[in-house]
């Protein structure tokens, strides 16, 4: 086979169904990479176990340590019912750290370089990672729900509303994954990724209305806490779970998701094309 023949052959292959290819390829490649990441998750169960224990600890801590202080005078419902929506959102945010660590690990092991030399879609490594982390989030949030019911959490609304709330949490976790994809590609090694993610996560999760109403915070912090995406998502989830009017809060939360993905997905793909 001469060089010329090879070129002609591949030119012919390229010509057929190029348009269809352009639509299908990112999805197919993304799913292949997601499958690979999920297999890894199942084969290293320690990772899943320990990253599940962490939010469980949070449930118990907040429920029983702060639950006594934060009574009806602060929140208008039993604290556990106020808390759980916040825990769901927090779980999704902390789970997104996996995205950074996973991508940074692929860079360190050289697997990223192999992917970049393959004729696969440029977005697939990132979408495959974020999709796998989304699937993982479904599992962890299901577990959190069970834990919540075990410590006294009760639905004030319908099952349909609760499922909508879970979807919101998933959408938010997926959104955060794109932020942390950028962090992971930026720093390029798993230890640094973890260290870089933490100072980003803590103010987002704790300077928010996830666990307590923001009204007790000083004015300058309130301005941030009131509007940032964790608060907005936690509020929308809480509305759905507690059965209070939710429409505008849901739209706000979804607007945050859309804005963040619109900014960070292209940035991530741009970084992926450049990093080694």
């Amino acid at each position: 086979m001469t060089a010329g023949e090879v070129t002609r052959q591949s030119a012919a292959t390229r010509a057929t169904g190029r348009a269809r290819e352009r639509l299908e390829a990112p999805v197919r490649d993304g799913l292949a990479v997601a499958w690979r990441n999920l297999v890894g998750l199942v084969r290293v169960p320690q990772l899943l176990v320990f990253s599940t224990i962490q939010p469980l600890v949070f449930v118990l801590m907040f429920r029983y340590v702060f639950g006594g202080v934060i009574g009806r005078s602060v929140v208008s419902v039993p604290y556990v019912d106020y808390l759980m929506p916040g825990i769901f959102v927090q779980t999704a945010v902390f789970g997104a750290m996996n995205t950074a660590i996973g991508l940074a690990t692929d860079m360190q092991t050289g697997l990223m370089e192999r992917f970049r030399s393959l004729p696969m879609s440029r977005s697939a490594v990132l979408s495959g990672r974020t999709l796998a982390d989304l699937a993982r989030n479904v599992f962890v949030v299901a577990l959190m729900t069970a834990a919540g019911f075990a410590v006294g959490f009760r639905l004030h609304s319908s099952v349909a509303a609760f499922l909508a709330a879970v979807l919101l949490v998933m959408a938010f976790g997926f959104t955060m994954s794109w932020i942390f994809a950028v962090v992971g590609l930026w720093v390029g090694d798993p230890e640094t990724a973890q260290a870089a993610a933490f100072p980003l996560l803590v103010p987002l999760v704790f300077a928010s209305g996830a666990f307590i109403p923001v009204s007790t915070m000083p004015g300058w912090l309130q301005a941030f806490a009131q509007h940032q995406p964790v608060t907005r998502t936690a509020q929308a989830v809480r509305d759905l779970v507690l059965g209070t009017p939710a429409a505008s809060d849901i739209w706000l939360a979804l607007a945050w998701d859309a804005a963040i993905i619109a900014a960070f997905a292209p940035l991530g793909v741009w970084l992926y094309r450049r990093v080694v």
Partner: protein
Amino acid sequence: METGHRARTALRIGAWLRGRWVRLVSSAAISTQGLTKRFGSLTALDGVDLTVPAGVVFGLLGPNGAGKTTAIRILTTILRPSTGRAEVLGHDVVREPAVVRGLIGLAGQYAAVDPNLTGRENLRLIGRLTRLPRRRFRPRADELLERFGLAEAGDRTVRTYSGGMRRRLDVAAALVPHPPVLFLDEPTTGLDPASRLALWEMIRELVGTGTTVLLTTQYLEEADRLASRVAVISAGRLIADDEPARLKERLGNTVIELRMPDENRARQATGMIAQQLSRSPEREGAVLRITARDGSRLLLDILHLLDQHALTPRGVAVHESSLDDVFLALTGHRAEAADQEEPPSSAAGPDGAP
């Protein structure tokens, strides 16, 4: 004389036509012009011009940090060049990266396989990502596992593999889509001798079926065994581009090292060898180094000569020319970053190895 003249003319025309024909039919598999890559103030590649004909093994030699991996990264579309051009089978790596990716296979310096997947799953993943249909990549994965001696380990996770097994799987992964151009970045570094030989055999087979292989290595022997052409790269510049035999001719292929008891006697021995055997040893303190093509004969002569003058070396080592020696010959100075991973092939004396 008339007929002789005519015959010569006919021969000349024939040769000229053949030359044109060859140029038309077998265009270069890889070519670069003025390829340059800068990282900030560091120039990793500095105006490299390379032409790799189709269907051969081309060896790219150089010490760590010479720019070999940077060159491979540019040719495999992972990095963009700062200036200059690079083409794979006539396709520009910057303007048509997607086409180039469909024509190449890459096996990197470290085994880029997923430790959590099994060997078989790794190969199937590559098959899927290179757009092979399932009915093709499944048997292909099995076939490659078989060929690389991984059939039994195929369903174990790569985490349990030895370094050599991972390396073989890495090369197998690069071969899944039958790439016409294969890049192997130091494929045998850290491999045991048996695996190294098996891989060499594999590379020869591939070239037999028309694949072009660009191979980087630190070992002259490897390039010598496999490559029909070798380029030497140092500090980002191409310092030689020739057939391995001609390179070796230029520097000899055996290196003899003599460790004398002290510097004084080393100086004495140097003079003697220069005078009587007309060789010019290179001296570093008490150590003499002589590069030669007739190594064993010369060694006998040297030992005989030294013995006659009651000069006994404290240690003697003989080894095949390493890349380091190529460098010494080509540039006049040692390749600072060159690894000394391989011990000399034979050593004598209590502290024979330097």
